């Protein structure tokens, strides 16, 4: 059994920043991650970040991860438990993390859940044929393990993930047949990224969706069809794409099961990606000892994840009685608010308002 002040679950930008905030305040931290390398989704982000210089803009994602990981690993108050997944959370502050061979019992006064998100699936014919995979999975194989899962790709979804994946595939020497999106306009991607991949010859096919993949034992062909205003397929507009991988970048879903298991109230908010724990801007949930930071609390991106992680960390430390710089808390809250001023954050803001105006507000 390990006893700590604060358990942090997830070693991405939110989790690492949360752990550092808690540890800097003087409390002891156990950081658990199911992988052996810290960084979460940052590890596969080979592009430079937008946003603010003090939160990593202009730096490549995996470099940000390395810098944070260095600080986490060398902090005397932080213990790491890598290669372990959280499999149980109980109301008395007991948590169980496990590998495939053994388990670890953890007793923590507070827990900050930075479990992130899972990729969404959509329905089309033969959607379990090998060659159909999440865009994030393609990035993991390609950018982290150096394995190319195919030669020619169809990307479904024109959000940030889909568009950046297209660019990374081209950089790696693969062919991108097209990016399709069911909506009439570009998804959440930054326009400069979308313009760049189109200049490189990747068509962006809007108001179009995938209806099936076909092939002998693996994807050899994908079929897409145009949709009308009600998202109904328009007969006669079928198009064949000769690809061996279909990468689905159709959105992410917060990993809320850990909150549900621990008895935290979760609410379905489509703008935040699905079921999310009720939470305020400091990371409080409906359970006084469990906190959350993005994306587990709502799908955003790395900058808000690191700010949210820091805020949740400072809040947990303060509530354990450790001295915390209140001015810094105010500053982080202000930063979060002004970062969300961009039009790309409109949906998230609506989602958070909906969540917080509910019965638990």
């Amino acid at each position, binding site marked *: 059994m390990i006893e700590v002040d604060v358990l942090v679950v997830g070693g991405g930008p939110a989790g690492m920043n949360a752990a550092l905030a808690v540890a800097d305040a003087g409390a002891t931290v156990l950081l658990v991650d199911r992988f052996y390398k810290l960084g979460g989704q940052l590890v596969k982000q080979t592009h430079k970040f937008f946003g603010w210089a003090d939160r990593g803009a202009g730096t490549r994602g995996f470099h940000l991860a390395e810098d944070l990981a260095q600080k986490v690993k060398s902090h005397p108050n932080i213990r790491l438990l890598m290669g372990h997944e959280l499999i149980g959370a109980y109301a008395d502050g007991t948590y169980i993390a496990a590998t495939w061979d*053994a388990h670890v019992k953890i007793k923590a006064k507070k827990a900050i859940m930075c479990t992130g998100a899972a990729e969404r699936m959509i329905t089309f014919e033969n959607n379990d044929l090998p060659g159909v995979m999440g865009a994030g999975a393609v990035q993991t194989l390609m950018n982290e393990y150096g394995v190319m899962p195919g030669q020619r790709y169809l990307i479904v979804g024109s959000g940030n993930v889909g568009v950046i994946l297209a660019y990374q595939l081209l950089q790696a020497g693969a062919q991108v047949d097209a990016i399709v999106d069911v909506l009439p306009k570009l998804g959440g991607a930054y326009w400069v990224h979308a313009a760049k991949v189109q200049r490189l010859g990747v068509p962006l096919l809007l108001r179009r969706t995938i209806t099936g993949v076909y092939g002998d034992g693996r994807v050899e062909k994908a079929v897409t069809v145009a949709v009308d205003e009600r998202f109904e397929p328009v007969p006669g507009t079928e198009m064949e794409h000769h690809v061996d991988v279909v990468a689905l970048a159709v959105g992410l879903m917060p990993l809320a099961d850990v909150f549900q298991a621990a008895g935290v109230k979760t609410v379905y908010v489509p703008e935040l990606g699905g079921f999310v724990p009720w939470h305020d801007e400091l990371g409080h949930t409906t359970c006084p000892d469990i906190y959350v930071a993005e994306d587990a609390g709502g799908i955003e991106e790395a900058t808000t994840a690191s700010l949210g992680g820091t805020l949740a960390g400072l809040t947990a430390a303060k509530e354990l009685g450790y001295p915390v710089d209140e001015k810094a808390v105010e500053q982080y809250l202000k930063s979060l608010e002004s970062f969300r001023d961009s039009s790309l954050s409109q949906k998230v803001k609506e989602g958070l308002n909906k969540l917080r105006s509910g019965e638990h507000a």
Partner: protein
Amino acid sequence: MVMDPKKVIICRCEDVTLEEVREAIKNGYTSWDEIKRLLRVGMGPCGGKTCKMLVLRELAAFHKKPIEKLPIRPTAVRPPLRSTPFRAFLKEEEL
């Protein structure tokens, strides 16, 4: 619809098709819990990360209600949260 629901997989872990889910709903199994017990959606290794939203969308269409208004028991998630072999329960690691 141009898609054959027999060929559309809803739950990859347990190999459940869209046709089976629609058939279950037609037969009166109209909540996530009932469909889960009947077809084993969400009971495979991924714990519903692929299928749950897809099934909820089908239920929303059937009930003509948004997903947030569907009857879903909030306490239905229990440990272990991830597939864990029995041997992992038998051995406690001391760190």
